[in-house]
């Protein structure tokens, strides 16, 4: 399976996402924002970072970059697409997921290991989790506060489109503790925390077992492999 990772000007975690795909057993493919070529990949990751310096709004300019036309088409035809942090903001600005992300309610950048609850284990990117499973992955953002109008929020909750919720202290003021979303079809997912930073023992969050041994993020990438195999 080939997982494409799009690099925008200002992407930071594209290499980490490629590495996560490799560790999970997929072939990572570097995709370039200025191209109109998905190079025949089977899934796409929009990585974290600060595309275009967060100018205009986080993710707003990247959402209008050339390759996004193909990404939106692919997403609408069922290809798995995962947006992480800035990638989530790009998905929202590209209208592949609803709502908006605003500055953290306390005004500070947050960087810490974050507990999450998997609220929808039936998506292309979460099928390896148990419904309701608690996981820990790093979180690092300044504008991660999820908002949506009351009607949208009710729809997200009612249709099970909240994919991840923060556990413990809400780190950024997100409504309903929402950390990530999926679409109706379950092929598109986006979240503010960073699963690609929790894929290899020695470099992940601390666990009860050992320092930096947390690899909960790997399941995102093995899930999409399983998703692809189940449809092959």
């Amino acid at each position, binding site marked *: 399976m080939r997982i494409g990772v799009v690099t925008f000007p200002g992407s930071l975690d594209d290499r980490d996402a490629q590495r996560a795909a490799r560790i999970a057993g997929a072939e990572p493919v570097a995709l370039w924002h200025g191209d109109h070529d998905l190079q025949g990949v089977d899934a796409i990751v929009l990585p974290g970072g600060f595309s275009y310096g967060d100018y*205009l*709004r986080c993710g*707003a300019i990247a959402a*209008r970059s050339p390759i996004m036309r193909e990404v939106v088409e692919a997403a609408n035809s069922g290809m798995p697409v995962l947006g992480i942090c800035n990638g989530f903001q790009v998905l929202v*600005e590209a209208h592949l997921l609803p*709502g*908006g992300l*605003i*500055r953290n*309610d306390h*005004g500070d950048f947050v960087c810490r290991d974050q507990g999450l609850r998997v609220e929808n284990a039936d998506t292309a990117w979460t099928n390896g989790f148990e419904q309701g499973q608690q996981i820990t992955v790093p979180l690092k953002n300044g504008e991660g*506060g999820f*908002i*949506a*109008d009351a009607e949208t929020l009710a729809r997200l909750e009612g249709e099970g489109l909240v994919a991840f919720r923060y556990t413990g202290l809400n780190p950024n*003021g997100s409504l309903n503790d929402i950390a990530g979303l999926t679409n109706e079809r379950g092929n598109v997912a986006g979240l503010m925390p960073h699963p690609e930073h929790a894929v290899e023992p020695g470099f992940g969050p601390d666990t009860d077992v050992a320092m930096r041994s947390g690899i909960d993020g790997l399941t995102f990438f093995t899930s999409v492999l399983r998703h692809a195999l189940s449809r092959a």
Partner: protein
Amino acid sequence: MPTIVVEVMPKAELLDPAGKAVAGALRREGGHPFSDVRIGKRFELTVDGAVTDAVLAQAQKLADEMLSNSVIEDVVKVTVLEGAVA
């Protein structure tokens, strides 16, 4: 060349941390009647050619769809800059 001005403000109910910081500084300053500050964005669009109703409508569309995000912001003004020499 004519210029169209687009002004975008964060929605009233949303946090405006930059405005809040300036308001805090104003409070410390004292000696004035200004109780709050909100900070928005102003875009100046340079127009090739005359500003027709169609061009203004295009600017409004751009303001609604790209220069602002209706989830978090409101477009409060789309006007031709007065005094600009065509």
